[in-house]
C-alpha cells in the first residue's frame, strides 16, 4: 500500500464524510466507519475521482462486510498502476 494513497483516502473520509480522523486506520473496515451503504458507495466514487481511476465492480463491493481501508488503498494502487501503463501505451 502506497502511504500517499492511504493519506488521500483518509483525507476524503475526514473532509467530505465527516469521519473522525482518530477512527481512520488501515485495518479499519469500511462498515466500521459509521457510513451507510449509500454513503460508502459515494465515498468510493470520491476516492476514485481523486485519482481519476475506476476500481472494477467485480474487485470491490463497498457494502461487503470486512473490506478494510488498506484493501481499498491497494485496489486504488493497482488501478493507478494500470492507468499509468495505459497512459504509456497510449502515449
Amino acid at each position: 500500500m502506497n502511504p500517499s494513497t492511504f493519506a488521500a483516502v483518509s483525507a476524503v473520509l475526514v473532509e467530505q464524510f465527516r469521519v473522525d480522523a482518530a477512527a481512520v486506520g488501515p485495518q479499519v473496515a469500511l462498515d466500521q466507519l459509521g457510513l451507510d451503504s449509500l454513503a460508502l458507495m459515494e465515498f468510493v466514487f470520491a476516492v476514485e475521482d481523486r485519482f481519476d481511476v475506476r476500481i472494477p465492480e467485480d474487485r470491490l463491493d463497498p457494502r461487503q462486510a470486512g473490506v478494510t481501508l488498506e484493501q481499498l488503498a491497494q485496489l486504488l494502487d493497482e488501478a493507478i498502476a494500470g492507468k499509468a501503463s495505459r497512459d504509456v501505451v497510449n502515449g
Partner: protein
Amino acid sequence: MSSTARSRVGAPVAVTGAGVVSPIGNDLAAFDEALFVGRSAVRAHALDLPGIELPPVPVARSEFDAAAVIAPSRVPLDRGTAMALATADEAARDARLAPGRFDAERLGVFWGSGMAGATTFELTCRTVYADRRRMRPTSVVTTMPNAPVAEIALRFGARGAALAYACACASSAVAIGEAMRAIRAGWIDIAIAGGSESLLTPGVLASWQAMRVLTPLAAGTDREASAQRACRPFSIDRAGFALGEAAAAFVLESAEHARARGATVRFDLAGYATNCDGVHITNPDAIGQARAMRAALADAGLSADAIGYLNAHGTATLSGDAAEAESIAAVFGANGVPVSSTKAIHGHLLGAGGAVELLAASRALAAARLPPTGDVDAADPAFALDLVTGPARTSTGLAAVMSNSFAFGGTNAVLIATRARG
C-alpha cells in the same frame, strides 16, 4: 405514550418556533431589520450557459454555506435541502424541542418545495451531457422531491408523517396549512412545517426568463440599481419579479401540547384554506382567490375587518397583481385592508414563499408594524388598494394577519395568523 386522537376542529394551532434562511437574513433580528425598512436583497446575476448569450437576470441569493450542514445520512445534500435542515434545526431550537422530549409517533413533517433538488438535478445533467462524467450513487436521493422532508424527519426521528407538497408557489403555505389540519384533526400533536427552494441555476433561471416574467435589467452602470428595484409589486411601472432562494420552518403544536410542555407560543395559526382556480395553467383568477380568502376567514371564525394586515402574493406581474388587487377588494372592500408584498425585497421564493411570507406577516404581528413594499411609493391608481409604502406603518392593536400564496397550476392557499392568546 400516545395521547388520544381527539379532534380539535376549528381550534387555533400554536406556533412555538421559527427558523429562516433568506436573502434578507438568516435570523429574526436581521430579517426584521431589512423587512421593516424595505431593503432589497435583489442583485443582477449573469447566466452562465455555454454557447448561449442571454441577458442577466435579477436574483435574490441567500448568504448560506450549504457545506456546513451535515445530513443525518452524511451523503451530500442539495443546497435547498441543506437550507431546509438548517431552518428545521433552528425552529426546533427556538421551540426547545429537544430529542427524546416528545412522542416521535405524534410528530409529523410537512414540507413544501416547487422543485426540490433542482440545483443538483441541473448539475447532474451537466455532469452527464457536458462534462461526460458518470452519475453519482447519491443522485437519486439528493434530487427526489421529498428529500428535504425525508432529511428533516430523519434528523428528528419523526414517526407520525413525512409529506412533501409540490404545488409551485403555494407549496409551503399548503404544507403549513395541512400540518395545521393534521394537528386539528388529532392525527398528530406536533409538526415541523415549512418550505425550501433553491433553484438559481442557469438553466432554471433561463427557463423563467423565457416566460418573460423576470424583470429585464437596465444596461451598463444602471444595472445594479435596476436589479435592486426589479420587483415593484402593485406599482404602475411593475415589470415582473426576481427569483430568490430561501427556506423557513415552523414548529406547530396543539395548544394543549404546547401548554403541557411549557412552550412559549410565538403566534397562533387561526385559519387556512386551499382551493383551485380550475381555469388556466398560469393566469390567475380573482374569483378563485377571493373564495380562498373567504374560506380562510371562515376557518378562523373571523370577519374580514378583523384582519389588520395582508401579505399579498404580489409578484409584480401585470396580470397577477391586477387579479389580486381585484380579489382583495372583493373580500375586504375598496382600500379595506393594509397590504404589502415583501417580494419586493426578498424576491419570488417560489415553493418557500408561503413560509417566508407567513414569517413576515407574523413579525408584523409581533411588532405591531406593517412592512412596506420595498421602495414602491404608490399603488397603481387602477387599484382600490391600501398599499403600505415608505417606512413601516405602525398598527397599534394589530391582532390578525393574512398571507396569500397563489400558484401556477391554479392552487390558492391562504393562512391567517393571530396573536397568541394569553
